[in-house]
């Protein structure tokens, strides 16, 4: 009996609470991680899907691919896997997190070649602590009932499920292939390693340009002479962007008095900027 056909599922619904940025849109070597990961898995599976939260359904970067929306929004990665099995119950799923910039085709091929289709899942052991890595793993159709039972018990940690289940565990051929990126500092380090030049604080004169929207308020709006603008910039962080705008727009407020917002949320001066971001520099507030 042949093994169930393998589909791919890239999980992009994470809330990125530590990064404060959509990890799928972080760029490495000039390319968003969403596109890098989909390019990696598409040739290795019969069909590849992007797993999204319901409210991400219309995100144009995600809808460039086939998507599967979570049925519930409180299950984390398990919600994505649950929705994938609901959509295609007879297929096996290669499930990948989208915060694994070092993942390479060799690591995925190794997983597929060693796949144990008669067990519930095949996964790597973490190079760091030996625990199963549930977000670079293959889930067989037979795992669905066990996962649903796990969810019904109120559990949502796929790693714990794997630790108890009938799972084939492999050693990683490349110890760093599954290093993940959770914070702005980890991103800067990873993008530097992967050739984005993203690590140092030097002048942002070279490197890829990204299109961002800048919004101005109050005194900064008057100094800039506009409420907003779209521009192409080599700035990699809000700090570099503000330095550029001080020069080019004559902004005269010192940055230590300002706060940063990215995509309508308070952000960080060192947070990496991505294509399409909206950045606002907020003068000292005075409500009431």
């Amino acid at each position: 009996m042949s093994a169930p056909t393998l589909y791919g599922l890239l999980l992009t619904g994470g809330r990125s609470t530590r990064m404060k940025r959509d990890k799928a849109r972080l760029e490495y070597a000039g390319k968003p991680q969403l596109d890098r990961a989909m390019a990696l898995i598409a040739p290795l599976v019969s069909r590849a899907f992007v797993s999204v939260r319901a409210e991400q359904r219309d995100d144009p970067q995600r809808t460039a691919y086939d998507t599967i929306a979570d049925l519930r929004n409180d299950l984390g990665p398990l919600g994505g896997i649950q929705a994938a099995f609901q959509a295609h119950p007879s297929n096996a799923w290669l499930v990948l997190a989208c915060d694994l910039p070092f993942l390479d085709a060799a690591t995925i091929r190794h997983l597929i070649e060693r796949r144990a289709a008669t067990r519930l899942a095949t996964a790597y052991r973490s190079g760091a602590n030996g625990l199963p890595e549930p977000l670079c793993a293959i889930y067989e159709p037979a795992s669905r009932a066990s996962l649903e039972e796990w969810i019904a018990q109120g559990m949502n940690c796929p790693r714990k499920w794997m630790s108890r289940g009938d799972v084939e565990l492999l050693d990683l051929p490349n110890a760093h292939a599954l290093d993940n990126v959770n914070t702005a500092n980890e991103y800067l380090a990873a993008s530097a390693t992967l050739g984005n030049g993203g690590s140092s604080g030097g002048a942002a004169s070279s490197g890829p340009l990204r299109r961002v929207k800048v919004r101005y308020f109050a005194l900064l709006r008057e100094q800039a002479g506009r409420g907003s603008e779209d521009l192409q910039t080599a700035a990699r962080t809000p700090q570099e962007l503000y330095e550029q705008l001080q020069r080019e727009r004559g902004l005269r407020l010192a940055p230590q008095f300002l706060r940063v917002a990215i995509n309508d949320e308070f952000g960080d001066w060192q947070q990496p900027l991505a294509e399409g971001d909206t950045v606002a520099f907020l003068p000292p507030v005075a409500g009431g």
Partner: protein
Amino acid sequence: MNRFTLLETPLEPARLAETLRHPSCGGYATFEGAVRNHNEGRAVVRLEYEAFVPLALREGERILAEAKSRFGLERAACAHRVGVLEIGDLAVWVGVGAAHRGEAFEACRYIIDHIKHSVPIWKKEYYPEGDSGWVNCEQCAAAPGSH
């Protein structure tokens, strides 16, 4: 939700206070902030408020939620004006409902203090001499030549 609102029209305290009523509340406290005819030693003729709307709404809701859990409130609401306001106009209204008066007074104070401190709303003062200035901003210039 929408317990924190930004309005381009005059605030109506009586109507806003109606939204607080709840059978488990024994104490209601409200605060009204109005446009004053002077600030820091200068006469002021009117004010203009500007907000970063999506972030102001989110931050305002966050402060109300924090106050509700911190003081065990049944109700918490705030409405803030944007646009041009004349002397005497209401700029902000805060209202809370709690089981007892102590939490109600404290929570009302907590909410207005935090709203003034962190919600992205800005205020421009216009003076009788014809000039104007953004409150809290005018002292924040970068040193000349610095970046």
